[in-house]
């Protein structure tokens, strides 16, 4: 028999019996806890689960690569990776030891925890322990010394004193302290054993060896060390068993729930909202009860580690609206736990009248209406929580009850009557083409290669009408064969759907699909990212399945194929704002940037760009609602202009969305940066680069003045 040690070195037979008793107890508590969690999740709405193998692989990749966890906070990412891998090695070590001690030895009367394997094991475990400790120090420093703002528990959606996060704070301390104790006592266990037995292979356990040397040089050997070893053995053992038993009930639950949620989450969450069944009863429309959540959504509530990245990214929270995505999830978690979870079991089984209704009570209407559905929270969540579709479902029930934000209500009524949010007569939809010196085809009457879905803003808003005219001019110049639906077009309904009025969305979508399907064309493009998104991704479920592109993609295609030749290098210094619906929703980040490069615009990125772009505040139907921001707070659109002007002198703030044209034209004026920067829609710059009459900014201004 080579190098090894006895697991129960120095323990009496009675103590060993007690130890196995503890294992049984802690494992039983763990198992009951997990069973309670599963029964809680099963109270949610059933959902089909497909591609389990693929889901598992994707989860393993995300969990082991830490790609989600390390985003936008490298320190936390590194710390977590060290804790994760350290813990994993130690956990694997304990499992191997358990197999050796309790399976192979009693059953096969053989040990494999010996010799070179034992020595390699020692090295690996010491490394794991070091990683765990270092990681914990890093994470603790991030939270308690560096005091990363997103980790404080301040709620932007509640007044001071209206909430208490003391338990969460305590939970963080307990979680970190337990893991720290486990790692430290493990090393001391090793050190004291080595100090007493002083085996020849001691230096393989390099951390334990250092401790041993310290102990021996201090004369801490023999009986004193042996006694210490005995005490530490129990501290380590009991801490480990307590930790195992506590996993389903504490912050540690994320070790189970987070990977499970990453596997089970809807990869299209928020991007493709789910249609209502035609025969749904009023109380089945959307969510009002905590049990209305899908099963994996109930699971996702427990996956939340309260890291605050969602609230940090949230434009509503940034402008002081009463919404914090993290606290919305935590409120739901508390409601689920109180009514369905372990706490409800403990509180005298089945105490009657536990209120599962959360809409209007725990989850306030003002919170739900604050959301712009910009997807920043879902996109950054390291454990794959689906805040946006959950908010959307609650909004659906508010709409079902007729409890709407007043301005939103009149906008819906206008949309229903007029088919557009401007309340303009249908026949005026194509009027913006009147200012052009060429005819734009009515695609309902004659076929064209491209069908241009213009959208409400680009059709009716005076500033965006100029952009539409610019785009028509550019396409005409390139000889592109395109047409529009004129009064056959309705609002695409993207924001109607995101505001929760699914019935109106379906009506609008069906009208548009019927109109488009009756036309003869090859591809669809839209100059409105909201229309682009819903046509491309959500109309297929309603019977409208076409090849849809955004105008920035189309323009890039024309430039790269040589059909559009930028004759003038513009040489402007500009920054570009990614629209949520184009960027985060559809991953179109590079087309507008390549287009700007092609026309000689020197692009200076804002700190928050691409997936981290800050919503202008107009999405999700917010553009139709009254502002709810807190006293003294700045609009997100104004904060964005602050961000752009902080980059130094820039000629233009470039956008690619009609709503951004409106929002940022206003924000430049109201933020106090008027005269420092100007807004241009990307098409206007493309037109200018062509060097054709009517294309340059001064000429556009002249035409404007002359009209």
């Amino acid at each position, binding site marked *: 028999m080579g190098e090894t040690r006895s697991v129960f070195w120095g323990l009496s037979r009675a103590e060993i019996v007690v130890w196995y008793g503890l294992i049984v107890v802690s494992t039983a508590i763990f198992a009951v806890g997990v069973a309670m969690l599963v029964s809680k999740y099963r109270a949610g709405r059933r959902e089909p689960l497909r591609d389990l193998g693929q889901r598992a692989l994707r989860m393993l990749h995300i969990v082991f690569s830490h790609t989600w966890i390390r985003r936008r906070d490298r320190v936390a990412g590194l710390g977590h990776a060290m804790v994760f891998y350290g813990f994993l090695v130690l956990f694997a070590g304990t499992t191997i030891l358990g197999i050796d001690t309790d399976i192979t030895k009693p059953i096969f009367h053989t040990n494999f925890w010996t010799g070179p394997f034992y020595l390699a094991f020692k090295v690996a475990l010491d490394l794991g322990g070091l990683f765990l400790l270092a990681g914990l120090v890093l994470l603790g420093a991030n939270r308690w010394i560096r005091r990363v703002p997103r980790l404080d528990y301040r709620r932007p959606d509640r007044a001071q004193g209206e909430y208490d996060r003391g338990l969460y704070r305590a939970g963080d301390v307990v979680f970190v302290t337990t893991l720290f104790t486990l790692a430290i006592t493990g090393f001391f266990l090793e050190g004291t054993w080595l100090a007493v037995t002083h085996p020849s292979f001691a230096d393989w356990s390099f951390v334990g060896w250092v401790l041993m040397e310290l102990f021996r040089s201090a004369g801490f050997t023999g009986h004193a060390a042996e006694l210490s070893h005995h005490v530490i053995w129990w501290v380590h053992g009991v801490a480990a068993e307590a930790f195992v038993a506590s996993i389903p009930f504490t912050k540690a639950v994320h070790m189970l729930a987070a990977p499970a949620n990453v596997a089970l989450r809807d990869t299209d969450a928020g991007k493709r909202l789910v249609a209502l069944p035609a025969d749904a009863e009023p109380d089945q429309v959307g969510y009002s009860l905590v049990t209305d959540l899908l099963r994996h959504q109930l699971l996702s509530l427990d996956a939340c580690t309260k890291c605050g990245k969602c609230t940090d990214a949230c434009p509503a929270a940034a402008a002081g609206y009463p919404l914090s995505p993290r606290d919305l999830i935590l409120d739901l978690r508390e409601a689920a736990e109180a009514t369905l979870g372990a706490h409800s079991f403990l509180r005298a089984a089945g105490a009657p009248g536990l209120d599962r209704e959360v809409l209007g009570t725990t989850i306030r209407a003002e919170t739900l209406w604050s959301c712009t559905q910009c997807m920043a929270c879902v996109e950054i969540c390291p454990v794959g929580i689906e805040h946006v579709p959950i908010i959307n479902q609650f909004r659906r029930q508010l709409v079902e009850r007729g409890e709407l934000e007043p301005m939103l209500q009149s906008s819906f009524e206008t949309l229903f009557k007029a088919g557009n949010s401007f309340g303009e007569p249908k026949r005026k939809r194509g009027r913006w083409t009147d200012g052009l010196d060429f005819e734009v085809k009515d695609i309902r009457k004659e076929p064209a290669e491209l069908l241009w879905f213009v959208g409400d803003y680009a059709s009716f808003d005076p500033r965006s009408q100029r952009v539409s005219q610019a785009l028509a001019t550019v396409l005409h110049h390139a000889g592109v064969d395109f047409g529009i639906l004129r009064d056959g077009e309705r609002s695409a309904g993207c924001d109607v759907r995101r505001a929760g009025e699914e*019935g109106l969305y379906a009506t609008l979508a069906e009208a548009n699909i019927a109109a488009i399907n009756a036309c003869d064309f090859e591809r669809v493009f839209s100059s409105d990212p909201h229309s682009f998104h819903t046509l491309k991704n959500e109309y297929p479920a309603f019977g409208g399945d076409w090849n849809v592109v955004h105008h920035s993609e189309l323009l890039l295609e024309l430039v790269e194929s040589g059909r559009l030749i930028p004759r003038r290098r513009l040489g402007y210094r500009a920054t570009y704002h990614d629209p949520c619906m184009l960027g985060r929703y559809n991953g179109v980040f590079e087309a507008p940037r390549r287009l700007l490069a092609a026309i000689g615009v020197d692009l200076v990125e804002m700190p928050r760009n691409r997936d981290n772009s800050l919503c202008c505040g107009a999405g999700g139907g917010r553009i139709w609602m009254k502002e709810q921001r807190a006293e003294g707070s700045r609009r997100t659109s104004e904060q964005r202009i602050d961000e752009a002007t902080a980059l130094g002198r820039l000629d233009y703030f470039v956008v690619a969305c009609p709503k951004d044209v409106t929002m940022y034209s206003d924000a430049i004026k109201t933020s106090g940066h008027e005269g420092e920067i100007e807004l241009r829609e990307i098409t206007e710059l493309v037109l200018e680069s062509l060097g054709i009459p009517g294309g340059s900014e001064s000429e556009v201004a002249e035409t404007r003045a002359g009209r």
Partner: protein
Amino acid sequence: MKTVVCVKQVAALGDEVEIDDSGRDVDHDYLESSLNEWDVFALEEALRLKESLDGQDGHEVVVVTVGDEECEQALRRCLAMGADRAIRVEAGGIDESDPLTTARRLAGIIGREVPDLVLCGVQSSDAVQAATGVMLAELAGLPRVAVVTSVHYDATSAKAQVHRELEGGLLDEVEVGMPALLTIQTGINEPRYANLRAIKQANAKEIEVVNVPSEGPRAYTVRKMFVPEKGDGAEMLGSDAAVVAARIAEIVRARLS
């Protein structure tokens, strides 16, 4: 408790207007129709009353309109908001569109339904006469309170404490026993949204259509409808009230002849 809410499908003018061939009405192609705004508040008040009494048997909100088939749109919107039942009384065209004739037809329904409470909007946004509701109260023999801005109903005494709006921002508080008729002012509540799902479901509901004869004199008959001709500009009338009034009367008489 049964509440009858009388509603009207009103017309709104678009950008352009043309008078039809009869010369007595606007060409309907140029009109956009909707449920009268005041009636939306009246219905919301009825629905809230019903909800506040929830749990007791037999609460019903019935909506009634007088008009042609097109006016069923207004009733469907009411059903979508939560009305239990809808009745349309056939109308008699432009010659029978005056408030007295309409009130007589509505009175026929009140006589049949025997409600505890009748709510009407103060006025309609197209005719703006504020007459139908009060005439209906008289014909149905009900006490009435006009221009109501708040209703507190007490189920045990079957009485309501009601605020009615007076001139100059004054409020009058009165107590009224049921059955009674109230004409409801806008702003009394925040009407709920009738969502599209509910509207679609309301489209499948049946609307009862009845004929109620209206015999007797009319409040008025429409003789002519026209767009006033654009003059050469304003004619400034003198400052003495009597002279101005006489001059106005003269002008009106001349234009109508």
